[in-house]
């Protein structure tokens, strides 16, 4: 009986047309006799496509992929799908710009020290911090003051965002996006009639819509959900994968295909708390393309 690694190699060889008749029969015995193997083979197809697109196949495998694997129209379409998904994923998960700050501590330990010296230094640092934390514990009352300052800063940030929003409403600009871009906007709470609801003009090439929701209430740690309803009240999208950005705002990302032209009401609520107590805020907006 073939080991898992042997079976995996055999599977790849089968898909790339690099097996003999006996090996082929062995693979097909599994293919027609084992449901789990069917899934394994299909997963191996997807893996080969990824490796081909990432240019990590060996030259021999690459030749087998282009000359044998892609003889099937279905596999070519599958590869096109993967290309499309990679392209979208690349725009959604763009790396953060800007130079990375080097931490002085990390820089110290990047010097070539033998492991035992590093362990001694780490122990000394740990002891020093233990002493420091005791001293810090005495200063808890000062931290309460710091927290209230932070809250004030968050409120100032909200006011600033509201001012920016007001300015944007006065001078709406059509948003032109490079293909594959993320379209971001900020919503303040409140339900308005259609004509006064925030209008979002989204470029046709936008893949993802990122919404930052400002809240009047403080967001405590926990899980939150967003529901979007259309004009007729039907729920058209729901997510409870919310990024809790700070005490008074939260951010979600939704695929642009989820929102057709029209008016929407978005409700932010706390998961596992029924309405009305669980509802944080409602927001209205309109979408145009």
């Amino acid at each position: 009986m073939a080991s898992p690694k042997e079976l995996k190699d055999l599977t790849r060889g089968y898909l790339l047309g690099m097996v003999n008749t006996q090996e082929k029969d062995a693979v097909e015995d599994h293919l027609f006799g084992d449901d789990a193997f069917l899934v394994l083979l299909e997963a191996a197809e997807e893996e080969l496509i990824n490796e081909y697109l990432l240019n990590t196949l060996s030259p021999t495998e690459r030749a087998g992929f282009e000359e044998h694997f892609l003889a099937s129209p279905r596999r070519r379409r599958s590869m096109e799908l993967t290309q499309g998904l990679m392209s979208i994923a690349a725009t959604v998960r763009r790396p953060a710009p800007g130079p990375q700050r080097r931490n002085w501590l990390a820089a110290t330990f990047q010097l070539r020290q033998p492991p035992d010296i590093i362990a001694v230094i780490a122990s000394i640092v740990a002891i020093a911090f233990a002493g420091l934390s005791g001293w810090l514990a005495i200063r808890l009352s000062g931290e309460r003051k710091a927290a209230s300052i932070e809250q004030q800063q968050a409120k100032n940030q909200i006011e600033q965002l509201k001012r920016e929003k007001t300015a944007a409403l006065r001078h709406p600009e059509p948003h032109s996006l490079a293909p594959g871009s993320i379209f971001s906007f900020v919503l303040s709470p409140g339900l308005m009639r259609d004509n006064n609801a925030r209008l979002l003009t989204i470029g046709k090439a936008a893949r993802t819509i990122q919404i930052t929701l400002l809240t009047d209430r403080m967001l405590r740690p926990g899980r939150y959900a967003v529901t979007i309803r259309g004009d007729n009240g039907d729920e058209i999208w729901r997510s409870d994968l919310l990024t809790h950005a700070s005490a008074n705002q939260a951010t979600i990302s939704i695929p642009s295909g989820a929102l057709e032209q029209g008016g929407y009401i978005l409700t932010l609520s706390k998961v596992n708390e029924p309405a009305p107590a669980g509802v944080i805020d409602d927001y209205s907006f309109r979408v145009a393309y």
Partner: protein
Amino acid sequence: MSLRNPRLWTDTQFQALLAWLHPDPDQAGIAYAKLHRRLRLFFESWRDSARHAEELADAAIDRAISKLAEDPAVATREATAYVRTIATYILKEYRSQPQPVSLAIDPPEVCASAENRCLEDQRCLNRCLGRLSSEDYELIIGYYAQEKPGDAVRWRKELLPRKFGKSYGALRVHVLRIRRGLEECIENCLKGG
């Protein structure tokens, strides 16, 4: 997966095939879909028959229905193994017919944005992605995200499963299921659906 040609078979004959594949009607549909996937992979394993793998898979199933209709005793045999034998005969018959000269397969190019077909594909992909649940959307986009090629393996095998609370194997099966749904949705979209 292409649909059965309603002109060739009666509903009774097709139901007989499903019952042969599995006694439970719900499971029979799943078994039928798996059989079709197996047959397609079988015909795709040969370079010459790969380009017509879908049609040959259909032909194998058509012949199985025909055999079952002619002789109900066929149903006493193991369905998948029987259909595999049929597929082997169909492959031999296919090869015995004169085939067009096999042209070299051009290496695929990245879909240039200027091509209308590519724009349509992207439009349909975007629309179909919009119909996914938020969790499926996050998963499929997350699965194909990587900063550098070397990160992809670690991202998929360790970090992504941890994020979604699934094993790597379960995650991969889920991704394949989402892909199948997307492929079907895109096909319908391109046909104007």
